């Protein structure tokens, strides 16, 4: 027992020493302040953002997957948010104060995400946060940010995210059903397709999108000929696809990640499927085209909240700025995180005094705001926008569907 306690003591000593060391926030933004965090009273949720002397930077957190399979989503989020924040900083910041990003990798693991949510709320004392691009991690973080009354933005599409009764969650992009309803309505009403098969992975995203597709079909008086599932690590879909093809569907609805959807499209064609591929957000990405191969992806119909449109001045500016900053073509995750951050900055301008709680209240008042994805009207539950547009892959490119 005593020996053990000694071990505990040593370990505890190491821990306290570690905590006393000011940690340098990993961020591309201006140098972080190394002030030791003041002790907070226990068992009392403290308002995370007490007014600070002006001049000190305001912190916004980003928690997302920066490594592993979902690293792309985190990377896009980082880029979209950073772009909006950098522009604001160049324009003088908020009330004369610069904005600083603190960025953390949760590896798409909800336990790690919860740790980090505690960290940004109580150690970094961020005023608002992006958390996360992954639905289960976003859900895991909701109770924490609700407790500390910190506005939490996500671009996860699962409907459940805004059904948890938090007044501090905001979804900067349409919810899943907006994607699938528009898609299925278009395919049924304009294209006249009747036989649909669904293939969905068993992750929260895939399962959710698959369910919305079923619902959308039902509203149109249809049921899927087959609905097949697969694990996110699977690479060979012959079993599922062979079964799907027996039902002779006109359309295969894809409900999974960019890569898995691309592989499925490729394998389905090779197994002799001649019909239409269609899917929601993940399909409207260059990654899907790359994975399926341009010839197989050709003609795939998708729905997306945003597609670059030369005629739209705002869109044009965004694409140029994104290209200048990252030397990459912008896609919709960059656009929705940029949009969300713009909304957040708008609310921060209005919040007086500048506290997390006031920012959330100001966010809820936003209506009729024009962003890249369309017009934003923030609801009580934290939805900000509905409506997606139909796109089609043409000549290996994502294009807006124009009626031909």
């Amino acid at each position, binding site marked *: 027992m005593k020996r053990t306690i000694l071990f505990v003591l040593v*370990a505890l000593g190491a821990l306290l020493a570690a905590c006393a060391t000011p940690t340098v926030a990993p961020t591309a933004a201006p140098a972080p302040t190394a002030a030791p965090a003041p002790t907070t009273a226990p068992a009392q949720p403290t308002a995370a953002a007490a007014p600070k002397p002006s001049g000190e930077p305001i912190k916004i957190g980003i928690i997302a997957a920066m490594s592993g399979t979902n690293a792309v989503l985190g990377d896009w989020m980082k880029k979209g948010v950073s772009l909006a924040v950098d522009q604001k900083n160049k324009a003088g910041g908020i009330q004369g104060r610069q904005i600083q990003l603190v960025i953390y990798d949760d590896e798409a693991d909800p*336990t790690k995400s919860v*740790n980090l949510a505690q960290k940004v709320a109580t150690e970094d004392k961020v005023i608002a946060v992006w958390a996360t691009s992954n639905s289960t991690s976003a859900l895991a973080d909701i109770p924490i940010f609700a407790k500390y009354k910190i506005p939490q933005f996500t671009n996860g599409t699962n409907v459940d995210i805004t059904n948890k009764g938090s007044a501090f969650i905001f979804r900067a992009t349409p919810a899943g059903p907006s994607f699938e309803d528009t898609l299925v309505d278009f395919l049924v009403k304009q294209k006249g397709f009747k036989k649909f098969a669904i293939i969905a992975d068993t992750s929260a995203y895939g399962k959710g999108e698959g369910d919305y597709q079923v619902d959308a079909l039902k509203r149109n008086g249809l049921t899927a000929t087959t609905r097949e599932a697969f694990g996110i690590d699977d690479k060979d879909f012959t079993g599922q696809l062979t079964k799907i093809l027996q039902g002779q569907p006109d359309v295969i609805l894809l409900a999974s990640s960019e890569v898995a959807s691309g592989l499925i499209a490729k394998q389905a064609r090779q197994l002799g499927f001649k019909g239409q591929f269609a899917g929601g957000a993940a399909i409207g990405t260059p990654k899907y085209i790359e994975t399926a191969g341009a010839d197989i992806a050709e003609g795939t119909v998708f729905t997306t909240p945003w597609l670059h449109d030369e005629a739209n001045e705002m869109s044009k500016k965004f694409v140029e700025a994104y290209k200048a900053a990252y030397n990459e073509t912008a896609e919709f995750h960059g656009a929705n995180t940029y949009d969300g951050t713009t909304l957040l900055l708008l609310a921060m301008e209005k919040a007086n005094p500048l506290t997390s709680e006031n920012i959330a209240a100001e966010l809820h008042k936003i209506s009729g705001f024009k962003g890249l994805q369309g017009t934003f009207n923030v609801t009580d539950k934290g939805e900000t926008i509905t409506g997606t547009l139909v796109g089609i892959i043409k000549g290996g490119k994502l294009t807006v569907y124009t009626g031909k």
Partner: protein
Amino acid sequence: MKNTFKVILLGVGALVLLVFPLVAPNRYTVHIVNMAGIWILMSLGLNLAMGYCGQINLALGAFWGVGAYTAALLNTRFGSPIWINMPLGMILAGITGALIALPMLKVRSHYLALVTIGLAETINIIMVNEIWLTEGPLGISAIEMPELFGIPIDGAERFFYLVLICVVIGYLVARQIVNHRIGRAFIAIRDDETAARAMGVNVARYQVLANALAGVYCGVAGVLYAHMSTYISPDIFEFKNALFVLTMTMVGGMGSLAGSLVGGLALPLTQEWLRAIKSWQLVGFGLAIMIVVLFMPGGVVGLTQKIEQAGGIRLPWARKQTEGKPVAEEKLEMEGPNVA
């Protein structure tokens, strides 16, 4: 003189633990330590099954998940409080442990490693697919923070004491077990199964018991986790977290309960502390594991023993010889060809 020293140490240790939440720089720190407490409980369970009884077990994530799901479902569907969920979670996770032990009676070493991985994966797939029961991949939200004797355990600081109590009880119980007849039987089986059988030890019964105990410890950890984070989903209970517990136990010292305490605290804290270094952090983490394996196979606890033996000194926390040396120090009769 020496005893006074020990009493003072014990007192200081207890005091540090008791005031820790009050002096911690922020709630995040407390949360991380709470999480470490949960890992320690799982590590204690693993140590009983693997360190003492020699049963390789990579299904911890599943036991943990069974405990967490029991608490989450009972609480969200029937509003049942933690003091009801806790024993039920322990029982169900314990039964899962015992069931997983059944193939173990037939299958050995690396075959067993695979069987436990396979069973854990299968349980995870059930969590994902049996939506009527588990609510599927999206998980269960809005689990209540517990309330005990009218006191809401609603923040990391109060939760710390709950975790602390569980860890202290868990440790003391484990200590009793390993010093008891059961523990001696475990060690006998680990060291030489045939000899143990010849001595009249009911090997199968103890092997099932060891894994049931691992299940019970993980069940406690699961119930605590569900009530602490208020949200659970199947991806939390995947294989990677079983590996994490295995790693922390081996770093601390397999076959030593103190090893679980050391590893369970040190690993999660180091990981948080090194967070800023990103990918290189993980490379370093991998290298650190290899260094532990190659140069201190008994873990931190084994290392202190070596120092002790080498220098002929007796460190204040030296262990009684009866407690059994870490398994790592003696090669088990594995059916490998290299047993020269």
